[in-house]
């Protein structure tokens, strides 16, 4: 079977799944096993097909005679779509395994049939977005993806926040889709002088030389549309609402891979369809990337809800990817293909890496949610004793996302830094001075990400359980009690089942592997910069074999993840053995409480206090309301009985950008609503006036 057949076959499996699934609606458990095995199978096939397409430089298209009369559906598998198929397929394979364990908890509480159906549709949408080779099928797939994810966010629709989040998501997704539609319209129009449908195929757009004005309009519209989908600040407000409330397996897919389809769109439109661009386009992308990365991680640190924290951190990582793309565009427009290839490789590599570690983190957060029925970190703590597996796996995700060597987040961010450090060779003095400042913002972002994930892991898994006045985790939580098999009291007692665990183990292993062998990965994706920019870096990056990564030249910079891993492990082992030759006793003793003796679990540092120094330094970026209210016993104004502390950190963008628009649209609808009188005579008069006006103008 060729690569393309593998991919098409995987979509056919999903489509047939849509037919089969309703038949099992009465046997919910069986339904879960069958449907998620099908999605896992089709994801593997898609990932394999995509990976082979990248490896073999496969490029082939098919035309399926359905759709509009003049515009059949064009599908194409080329290395770029192959790469994104691999990213999507790989994570959705892991998540499908995870879903078997996760979704089972809903059995008996609510029907999961429609969740499974929309899950399949969601995968179909994502696979076909990257395969589409004409604007029409691209937008259809884009809408399938958006609509099915809307229903997935709505799954637990009895909660107000879910309905609100899903509505907001739908609105922003459609504003973005309109912009993308207009952008394709401009390109298709420019390709055929606004005649006929043939301009809507990507092939026609590729072969057209756009005039500067049309190209700029098309790029800006497309960038806005895709940025709204990717959660680029300031178009991000839907993301931290929608991602946390979806079921965790869906959050993993939405954050890990759905955002990446927008990255795919940006790369496809700029590098492939338009192809030739001035440097300031790259500067625009770079600017948005920098703002998104820094603001995203600052918002993430402020969160108390673990899934909201992860959602904001996805915003940050989208920013890091955009920074790579922006640098690649700047270098490409100054005819520096080698440096451009380096920056683009960094961006693509980070795309793959982020899919893995963010998927892992969302799955871990889902496991915690599953076991404790709690999303608020302020009420967690000490879970490392109750969920040892989840803790280790979540820690691997945290280490990867905090860019610590030798895990995968570090490899791609290191490449981004190398691209930055090479910017002095640009011929523009202005950029020479400004781009280093951008690099320092990335450094700040990376360091803040480490702080953010120390907080996420430390508050959730370490210390003591903070859950109110409960001394131990709530074994009486609704999920833990009846619905879930693996939960029993005692040590390790909240651990999730093996489906969820094995999915997380696989993802964690891929995080490590992707970080340890960067040269092999770069070798594999090298064909993408070759095709899009016309230069490759594998020859210089792998000059000294797979062990050493030397992006441009070995005198410039080098990094060897395997050696870092081996030596650190060797020294750790040696120190451990040397110190355990003589058997020293290990006593367990109570905490040092400064002689206070009444220490309680509520006296630990919590999520709000951990982020307090950063909140104070960067407070001007947020709208923060802090209320401290003391309650005094009657007749005693000196010694307060209780202190109430309320903290509300809000996104300034909501008030600045969205609220005026929302208010204005409500105001206009009110005014327009006055036309509705409910009387047939009035409507006849409206029609009459309209006809008269039309007759006057179109004489």
């Amino acid at each position, binding site marked *: 079977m060729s690569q393309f057949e593998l991919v098409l076959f995987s979509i056919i499996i999903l489509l047939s799944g849509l037919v089969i699934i309703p038949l099992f609606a009465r046997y919910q458990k069986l339904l879960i096993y069958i449907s998620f095995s099908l999605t896992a199978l089709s994801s593997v096939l898609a990932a394999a097909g995509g990976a082979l397409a990248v490896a073999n430089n496969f490029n082939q298209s098919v035309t399926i005679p359905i759709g509009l009369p003049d515009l059949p559906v064009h599908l194409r598998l080329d290395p770029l779509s192959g790469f994104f198929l691999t990213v999507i397929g790989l994570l959705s394979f892991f998540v499908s395994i995870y879903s078997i364990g996760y979704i089972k908890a809903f059995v008996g509480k609510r029907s999961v049939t429609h969740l499974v159906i929309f899950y399949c549709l969601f995968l179909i949408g994502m696979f076909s977005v990257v395969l589409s080779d004409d604007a029409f099928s691209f937008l259809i797939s884009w809408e399938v993806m958006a609509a099915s994810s809307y229903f997935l966010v709505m799954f637990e629709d009895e909660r107000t926040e879910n309905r609100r989040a899903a509505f907001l998501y739908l609105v922003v997704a459609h504003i973005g889709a309109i912009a993308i539609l207009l952008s394709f319209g401009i390109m298709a129009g420019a390709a055929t002088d606004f005649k006929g449908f043939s301009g809507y195929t990507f092939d026609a757009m590729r072969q057209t030389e756009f005039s500067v004005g049309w190209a700029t309009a098309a790029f800006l519209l497309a960038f806005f549309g895709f940025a709204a989908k990717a959660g680029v600040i300031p178009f991000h407000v839907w993301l931290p609402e929608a991602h946390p409330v979806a079921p965790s397996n869906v959050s993993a897919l939405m954050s890990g891979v759905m955002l990446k389809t927008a990255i795919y769109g940006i790369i496809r439109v700029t590098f492939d369809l338009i192809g030739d661009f001035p440097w300031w386009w790259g500067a625009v992308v770079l600017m948005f990337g920098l703002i998104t990365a820094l603001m995203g991680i600052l918002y993430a640190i402020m969160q108390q809800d673990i899934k909201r924290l992860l959602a904001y951190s996805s915003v940050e990582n989208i920013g890091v990817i955009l920074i790579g793309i922006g640098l690649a565009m700047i270098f490409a427009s100054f005819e520096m293909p080698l440096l451009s290839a380096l920056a683009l490789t960094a961006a693509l590599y980070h795309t793959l890496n982020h899919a893995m570690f963010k998927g892992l983190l969302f799955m871990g957060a889902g496991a915690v949610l599953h076991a404790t029925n709690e999303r608020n970190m302020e009420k967690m*703590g*000490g879970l*490392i*004793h109750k969920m040892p597996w989840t803790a280790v796996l979540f820690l691997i995700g945290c280490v990867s996302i*905090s*860019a*610590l*060597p030798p895990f995968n987040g*570090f490899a791609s961010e290191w490449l981004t*830094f*190398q691209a930055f*450090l090479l910017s002095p060779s640009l011929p523009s003095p202005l950029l020479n*001075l400004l781009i*280093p400042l951008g*690099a*320092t*913002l*990335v*450094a*700040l972002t990376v*360091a803040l990400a480490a*702080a953010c994930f*120390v*907080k996420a*892991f*430390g508050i959730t898994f*370490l*210390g003591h359980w903070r859950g109110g006045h409960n001394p131990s985790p709530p074994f009486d939580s609704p999920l833990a009690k009846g619905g879930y098999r693996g939960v029993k009291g005692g040590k390790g007692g909240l651990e999730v089942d093996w489906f969820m665990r094995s999915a997380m183990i696989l993802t964690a292993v891929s995080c490590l592997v992707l970080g340890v062998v960067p040269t092999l990965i770069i070798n594999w994706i090298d064909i993408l910069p070759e095709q899009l920019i016309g230069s490759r870096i594998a020859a210089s990056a792998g000059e000294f074999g797979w062990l*050493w990564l030397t992006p441009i030249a*070995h005198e*410039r*910079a*080098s*990094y*060897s993840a395997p*050696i*870092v891993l081996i*030596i*650190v492990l060797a*020294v*750790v082992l040696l*120190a*451990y053995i040397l*110190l355990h030759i003589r058997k*020293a006793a*290990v*006593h*367990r*003793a*109570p*905490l*040092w409480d400064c002689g206070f003796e009444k220490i309680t679990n509520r*006296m*630990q*540092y919590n999520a709000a*206090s*951990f982020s*307090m120094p950063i909140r*104070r*330094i960067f407070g001007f970026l947020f709208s923060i309301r802090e209320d401290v209210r003391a309650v005094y016993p009657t007749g005693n104004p000196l010694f307060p009985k209780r202190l109430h502390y309320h903290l509300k950190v809000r996104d300034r963008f909501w008030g600045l950008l969205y609220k005026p628009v929302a208010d204005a649209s409500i105001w206009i609808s009110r005014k327009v609503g006055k036309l509705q009188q409910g009387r047939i005579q009035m409507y006849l008069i409206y029609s009459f006036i309209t006809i008269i006006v039309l007759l006057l103008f179109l004489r």
Partner: protein
Amino acid sequence: MSQIYPVIIEILQIAILLIAAPVFIGWIRMLKCWSQGRTSAGILQPYRDIAKLFTKDVVLAENASWIFRFTPYLVFGVTVLVGAIVPILSVDLPLSATADVIVLIGLFAIARFFTALAGMDIGTAFGGMGSSREMMIASLAEPAMLMAIFTVSLVSRSTSLSQIVHVITSKGFILRPSIAFAVLAFIFIAIAETGRIPVDNPATHLELTMIHEAMILEYSGRHLALMEWAGMMKVFLFASIGIAVFFPWGIAPKDNLIYLPAAILFLAIKLCLAGTGLVLIETGLAKMRIFRIPEFLGSAFLFATLGMLSYFILE
């Protein structure tokens, strides 16, 4: 024979790191005692401290998890790896290509990440406070650090330490304003990263002022010994990185085993001077309020940026 030289130098360098780091700290403490009119415990006191801690039993907090027990080994291992990469004696290190400066920062970040987690593991307010403050300082130090690296890499066209040393020593001594600014920025950053006065006080156990000490407060026995030793090596390594990047004359060039004794001598002299400088700073200044640290690190960032600008404008 020339195949074995690098390996010998590598082993020698790690041995020097392990042995000399406590002496370096002893030297700093001794000078500090003298400058404050106290009698010192001698230059070898850090050895006695570590040796005593190694023989003691370990007392663990009741709910300490494996993270708490694993962290000292990891911090020690990472610090030794950094010591194997920084050109302390010679540029001819087989491991020097393993990591450039940015990877070295990443390696220190591993140590910091896990130390902060260990601080939160036991669940006292002290540990969390130390972790929170340490991560705040680290994130503010990072942009300044990157800008300093950027400035240095403009001159040497490399971020690999061995290459930087090679380029600077082979070009001979040139007074560069960009490097002068970068030195200033680096000193500020090194003080913040190693937790010295005026950012953090390594000698205090007063709850309001401690940062690094707060995180490792619950450690005892061999765990504490490893953490302390790694902390001493970190100070030693930051001094060595500063020497390698800004004052590399005296570090042995390639294939030159005879030059090694001279290199050791130069290293000792430079470290003595670095220690004296640090003591002068620590005696002359008082510890800052925690919310003045952003200004301190902001000025480090400003110096580094000025260095970059002066490179583009003057050189």
